[in-house]
């Protein structure tokens, strides 16, 4: 029998389920309980595809000592005029704090993966605020749950069971006491758990949200965004008439045309609804600690992402200092990628620039980005091989556990090493 760890926090998606049971034998995870299939695979495969310390020599990545890899990383950052630090969302908050310190020290830019998913959410909230709550409020009180432009059935698998659809809450017990709505451009597995599916024409979310606002304010509307007038009216009535409502939204809303304007419309809709009842809204954050990256950046710099330090103090400008834009314009001359895999997600032009400049990758696993890197530094997997803090999609902070030893140092130790080398000389 191996060692059993209970109530382990899952370090994979923004749900941050903290009820996992993990069994470890001979330094390897052999089984899990309560984990969703995504989580289970990640735990069981934690030792597969591990990165190795590597430095590119004559165009080829050659395995080197950790020491040499870290030295080389420090040298690259030191020689750079305008470095970019990017990622942050799949590591713990102490590593994120050090990444900010490093960005400040070298006078570079720092950005998290939020800029390519919920950046528009943040920008919209900076314009009008937001009415949010923790997931337990949803579990205990929400009798109307709307999933808009997101697919929790596939991307946040246990969300519905733990928080939003089926749990037995204090005032709302189970699915039969909740009304579930799914708004999206097409039916998905999430629609199957919904009591009402609203099919919106692609790129027309802003129109539909605005129509709902209008109806709630007492105006008449016709068919909008491919949704019949009657259905809009029905949904608006439900929203006004519930005791406690919530909208969960995802990249279907943040990354479709309109971007932050979509979110602005959604946030204002929810704000208006608070004249009638209790209504809240929460983004479905993807990476397990992308929320933490925002928190850390904000308490140290005042700004949640897309921050630049070249003037010696933090400057914020999404579109100017966000990673994709910096790379597209070819402005940065070196990059440090931490806890994310931009080459897998970025538009090709941005990835091409990453491949052109010296790029340092700190990652536990071989990633697409590590293949184009100048330096690869393997690290422990936060939440499996090292402890630290992560922030759930609703801002609740939890402590990640260490269940197995890592052959590699933690992100935190690696960043400390780079900082020490840079400050030392």
């Amino acid at each position, binding site marked *: 029998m191996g060692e059993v760890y209970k*109530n382990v926090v899952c370090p994979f998606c923004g749900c941050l389920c903290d009820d996992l049971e993990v069994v470890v034998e001979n330094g390897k995870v052999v089984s899990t309980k309560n984990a969703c299939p995504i989580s289970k695979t990640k735990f069981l495969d934690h030792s597969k595809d591990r990165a190795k310390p590597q430095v590119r020599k004559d165009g080829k990545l050659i395995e080197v000592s950790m020491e040499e890899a870290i030295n080389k990383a420090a040298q690259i950052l030191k020689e750079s005029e305008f470095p970019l630090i990017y990622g942050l969302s799949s590591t713990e908050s102490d590593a994120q704090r050090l990444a900010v310190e490093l960005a400040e020290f070298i006078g570079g830019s720092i950005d998290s993966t939020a800029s390519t998913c919920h950046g528009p959410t943040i920008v919209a*909230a*900076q314009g009008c605020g937001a009415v949010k709550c*923790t997931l337990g409020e949803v579990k205990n009180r929400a009798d109307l749950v709307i999933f808009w432009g997101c697919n929790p059935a596939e991307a946040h698998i246990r969300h519905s069971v733990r928080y939003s659809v089926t749990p037995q809450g204090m005032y709302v017990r189970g699915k039969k006491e909740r009304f579930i709505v799914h708004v999206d451009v097409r039916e998905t597995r999430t629609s199957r758990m919904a009591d009402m599916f609203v099919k919106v024409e692609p790129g027309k979310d802003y129109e539909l949200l605005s129509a709902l606002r209008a109806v709630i304010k007492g105006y008449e509307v016709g068919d909008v965004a491919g949704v019949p007038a009657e259905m809009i009216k029905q949904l608006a009535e439900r929203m006004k008439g519930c005791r406690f409502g919530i909208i969960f939204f995802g990249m279907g809303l943040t990354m479709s045309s309109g971007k932050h304007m979509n979110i602005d419309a959604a946030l204002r809709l929810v704000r208006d609804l608070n004249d009638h009842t209790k209504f809240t809204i929460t983004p479905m954050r993807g990476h397990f600690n992308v929320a933490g990256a925002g928190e850390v950046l904000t308490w140290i710099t005042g700004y949640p992402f897309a921050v630049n330090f070249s003037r*010696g103090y*933090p*400057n914020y400008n999404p579109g100017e200092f966000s990673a994709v834009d910096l790379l597209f314009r070819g402005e940065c001359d070196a990059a440090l990628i931490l806890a994310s895999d931009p080459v897998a997600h970025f538009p090709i032009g941005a990835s091409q620039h990453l491949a052109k400049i010296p790029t340092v990758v700190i990652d536990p696993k071989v990633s697409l980005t590590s293949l184009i890197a100048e330096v690869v530094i393997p690290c422990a997997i936060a939440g499996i091989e090292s*402890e630290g803090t992560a922030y759930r999609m609703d801002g609740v*902070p939890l*402590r990640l556990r260490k269940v197995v030893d890592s052959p590699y140092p933690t992100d935190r130790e690696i960043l400390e090493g780079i900082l020490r080398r840079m400050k030392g000389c």
Partner: protein
Amino acid sequence: MLIKNGLVYDPLNGIEGEKMDIFVKDGKIVESGDGGETIDASGFVVLPGGVDIHSHVVGSKVNLGRLMRPEDHRKDPVPKTEITRSGVGYTVPTTYITGYRYALMGYTTVMEAAVPPLGARHAHEELNDIPMVDKGAFILMGSNHFVMKYVAEGDLEKLKNFVGWLLKATKGYAIKLVNPGGVENWKWGRNVNSLDDKVENYGVTPREIVRSLAKVNEELGLPHSIHVHCNNLGSPGNSSTLIETVGSIGAEMGGPGSGESTNETLKGTAERIHITHIQFNSYGGEDWATISSAAEEVAKTLNKKKNATCDLGQVIFDDATTMTADGPWQHKLYKLTGNKWYNSDVEMEVGAGIVPYTFKPKSLVNAVQWMIGLEVALLVEDPWRVVLTTDHPNGGPFYHYPKVIAWLMSKKAREETLGKIHKSALSRSTLPSIEREYSLYEMAIVTRAGPAKLLGLKNKGHLGVGADADIAIYEFKENDIEGSFSRAKYVIKDGEVVVKDGRIVKEHWGRTFLVNPKGELMDEMKEEFSKYYTVSLDNYPVQPEYLPRCEVVPCR
């Protein structure tokens, strides 16, 4: 270290402007010294480091405030130096800048006044990123599920167990109540309007919550009293709620207050209550058009009730970011101003709201609010029961404290501002006719000795042997009081010079104060916890890793 020839003000030891030497060794004040650094304080005043009893500097709500105000930060970028980190200031400063700015004005201890238990881990993470000062966290309990449940059942034993456990689990310092009961009702979009309104589903009243927690606070022997943000905060005519709240606690005791008699009273086991940002709850009138000051009545109540203390929540004419756990009030403020609004409800425990705001001298309401804070401070006879705060960043940022000091110490400074405010306000408060001016000694009480005493921090707020060597040295100029206290000549923290000539010369890391009262979670609580929270009980208490530098303050 020797601090030589300074004019020392140390109210807790009865020292009022005496020229004397102070010796420091190993971070403490000692009887006599043998060499080391000498600071020539001739011509300067020497005070204990300032103690802020109520400020919002860290945690989920403060960070949402930062997040939603990029337009604010741009007005006040702070570059890094050889010694200090960069950040932004203005109304919601980043953690590093918060620490530096407190230190620059000679403050060395700061209490974060509103931490939701579920977010305590976050608050401690940020506290660990505030340099220079010592700190602590007040834990929000006034609308906590278990608190209301046991108040409803009248089971003080269970309540005591829960409260004691919660303080330990969150690594908190004191019990905080914000609009007790009202915050729970806000979770259904409603509020309470009086001390006797019922909290939905629980059937308890704010009065019962306040009284029960006051009792439990003393039975646990916590160093600080309960710390209360009253119901109806912000609304015209709300002084009656405040007076009733104070009246509901303990018995009337003691004769007219000298510092000593008050200190005695505070040592006893009588129930105590601290009313925070009293300005926001001292309004007369019926609506926004008729709003007036009720400071006279409020001060009368405080002069009589020796077990009640307050801090000001003084308004500054400048930009502010209002942020409280009082969700329904913040919603009302959003409706009043049309400004952006953040709301954040926390399962089983509490909520929060944030709305940017600007206090303008030509606004009648703002002018009355400005007058009330000072009026209370000047009408309450006993300075040991008044603490200077702005409820940062609600009434205005903390780095404006020197302005408030000037208004308290100088009638002339008040008259200058009175000349600029909305004329109709002048007849709505007695402030224009008040002659009192605080002495330096009284100023030292309301900014350091008093709050240290009220917090039960025995090593703070004074310069007696054994005290922590937190010392602020100022060049005091009668004709520039604000300037005198804005930038200290020297600040010594734990025996090290950290500020010199108004500049940070050393980054220092302070400690976090905790309490360790009795109280264990009972089985029925565990069961209910696992039913209704969305985190496991195992993962709820703040782990020791978040307290790298801490000090347990003993219960009384």
